[in-house]
């Protein structure tokens, strides 16, 4: 959890807005440090968290969150966290073992990828509403707050052959059920390839997905590399876009910050005010 980012977003684990769909996008720069931020943030806020970790193994997320002061293993034990390890599940689909009656969540891999992501959605749906996240605290299990879905990252789904349209459907379903029905939050990470100029031929592309997601989201964090090139002391810039409907109409606001990722956090500062140049 990065306190500087919390103050920028005007939120804290004690008081955060519910029903938000947050999009984190990365271009020419790695945005996964933000997903770690949100993971530790919502775990501290005592939400019921469902994490679709498609990129890395559980030990990676666990090691990083350890540095941020949150234990994933404990959260899993207390049934606060439901973790889908995409790598393991995927492998058992690619190379079917004899008697693995595992998770059906990634079954879209084995069959025609055009099937869509219904099973993945069912997995999300069941894990956020499973007992432990419910109201009863009778058998000693703790009571958790609103459900939160975190996805790292959607572009892996595209790489595995899922169409952008199917991913958009998935995100729409998640938003409808988590944000609207259950008053929870959704955070999705998407990495775009470096194709700033429009390639019309590529229908499946991440650009199309990005546009669709920006349309759905109410807070977008766009992480980019520096336009002037690589720098060791400034790792890139984050554009924060708020899109809120407040009373009379759309209220949008954009701010740009530069950032540097440290060992145990990240610092954000206004453009040109890095300690390296001042």
């Amino acid at each position, binding site marked *: 959890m990065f306190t500087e980012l919390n103050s920028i977003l005007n939120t804290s684990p004690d008081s955060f807005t519910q029903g938000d769909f947050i999009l984190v996008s990365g271009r020419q720069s*790695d945005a*996964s*440090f933000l997903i*770690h931020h949100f993971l530790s943030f919502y775990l501290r806020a005592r939400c019921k968290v469902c994490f679709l970790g498609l990129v*890395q*193994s559980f*030990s*990676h997320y666990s*090691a*990083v969150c350890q*540095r*941020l002061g949150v234990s994933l293993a404990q959260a899993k034990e207390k049934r606060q966290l439901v973790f889908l390890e995409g*790598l*393991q599940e*995927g*492998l058992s689909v*690619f*190379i079917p073992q004899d008697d693995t009656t595992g998770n059906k969540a990634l079954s879209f*891999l*084995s*069959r*025609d*990828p055009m099937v869509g992501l219904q099973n993945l959605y069912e997995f999300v749906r069941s894990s956020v509403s499973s007992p432990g996240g419910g109201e009863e605290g009778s058998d000693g299990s703790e009571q958790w707050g609103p459900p939160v879905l975190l996805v790292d990252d959607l*572009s*892996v789904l*595209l*790489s*595995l*052959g899922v169409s952008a349209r199917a991913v958009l459907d998935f995100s729409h379903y998640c938003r409808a059920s988590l944000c609207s029905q259950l008053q929870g939050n959704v955070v999705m990470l998407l*990495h775009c*390839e*470096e*194709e700033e100029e429009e*390639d019309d*031929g*590529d229908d*499946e*592309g*991440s650009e199309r997905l990005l546009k669709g997601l920006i349309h759905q989201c109410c807070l977008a964090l766009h992480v980019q590399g520096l336009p002037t090139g*690589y720098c*060791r002391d400034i*790792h890139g810039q984050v554009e924060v876009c708020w899109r809120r409907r407040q009373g009379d109409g759309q209220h949008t606001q954009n701010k740009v910050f530069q950032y540097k*990722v*440290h*060992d*145990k*956090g*990240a610092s954000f500062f206004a453009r040109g005010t890095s300690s390296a140049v001042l």
Partner: protein
Amino acid sequence: MAAPVNSVVNSSAKCSSFNATSFQKKTRSRLISIPGTRPSVQNGQLLVSTGVTSLDYLLGGGLAVGTVLLIEEDRYDSYSRMILKYFLAEGVVCRHELFVASAQHTPDDILQELPSPILDDVAIHKPVEQPRLSHEPQDSLDAMKIAWRYQNLPKVQTALASSSRFGHYYDVSKMMEAEIREAAKCHRFYLPEHPTQSSPTHSPMLESYSALLKSLRDVIQREGFEVTAPMSKSRNILRIGLHSLGSTLWGDDLCCHDNPRHGHALTTFLYGLRALLRSSLSVAVVTVPSHLIQNRALMGRITRLCDNAIALESFKGSEREANPLYKDYHGLLHVRQVPHLNCLASQLPDHKDLAFKLKRKQFSIERLHLPPDLSETVSRVSRGELAGTAMVGSACGSGTSGNKHLDF
């Protein structure tokens, strides 16, 4: 920790003693000690050497076990093949097991071309007790007779290198001796020998790739490379070299079309490969003919699914070969991706203008410094260089250009 590691290691591969500090991370005690590996300074990952010392430095000390290094081939696949061979040769010297897969040459062809290690101070295991020592080339034994006192001093290095020695040097002009080579256990995968049966499933992966993945999984399970395997017997590292994935010989059409039909085959395979590696003691180097792939977005996705990615851009056949700027080098090296594993901040290189050259005994990666302007006369060139040094001096410290002005 350092002492037991050395006692295990010194018989086979000389792993220079770690820079001994009194401070030790807690995580190190859990690590398994395997010859030819060392724990990372940053995050306690187990590292192996790529066989190229300066590449190790660039990757943050070495290649972390469980990760994939992607090499985008240069146009004639000469230097990328060389790095692959270095990687395998280092495995032979460290007594790791190898897995070589190829669709073009037989894996034995690749293995026969491994460069010969330069074993000046390294006690090499020989399967037969030194029978060839008498007619061995003398340069390993008689080297530095006069200056024997300086033998173990570190050389002054212009190239990228860390202070402690890790990995070995190789003589490209000589092939590795057959008996050293055959001492290493090697698994081979040659695609034409694996008849691919067309399966009825609608898997997004091609049959060739899924056969390769299956064969890899079998080797890992049979030989006990899984992390979860019982600790009873001594552990070893599996080095996986996959040559020219994505080329048409693998049955892939990435290189032929703008919008390939099997556009997700390679990315799906790489995802499966990552899953396999993360749960086993193995490390992979994959080369991909990226200059043939038209679709840049696709190449970006492929890069993203590998942990490390570098691209080689050889000057061979391009007009840059004759350019005096590049006369000292054989090509440029681009760092596409650095790993972020078990840590928030990835270890970024301090410099991204890099060039490589292949000398007889060393493949070295150096910082490329371009003088600010190229002018007609020689004297003005050197003055320009001097100005350039003064300008970037603070950034690069004792870089390459620093040494050139000592003779003034």
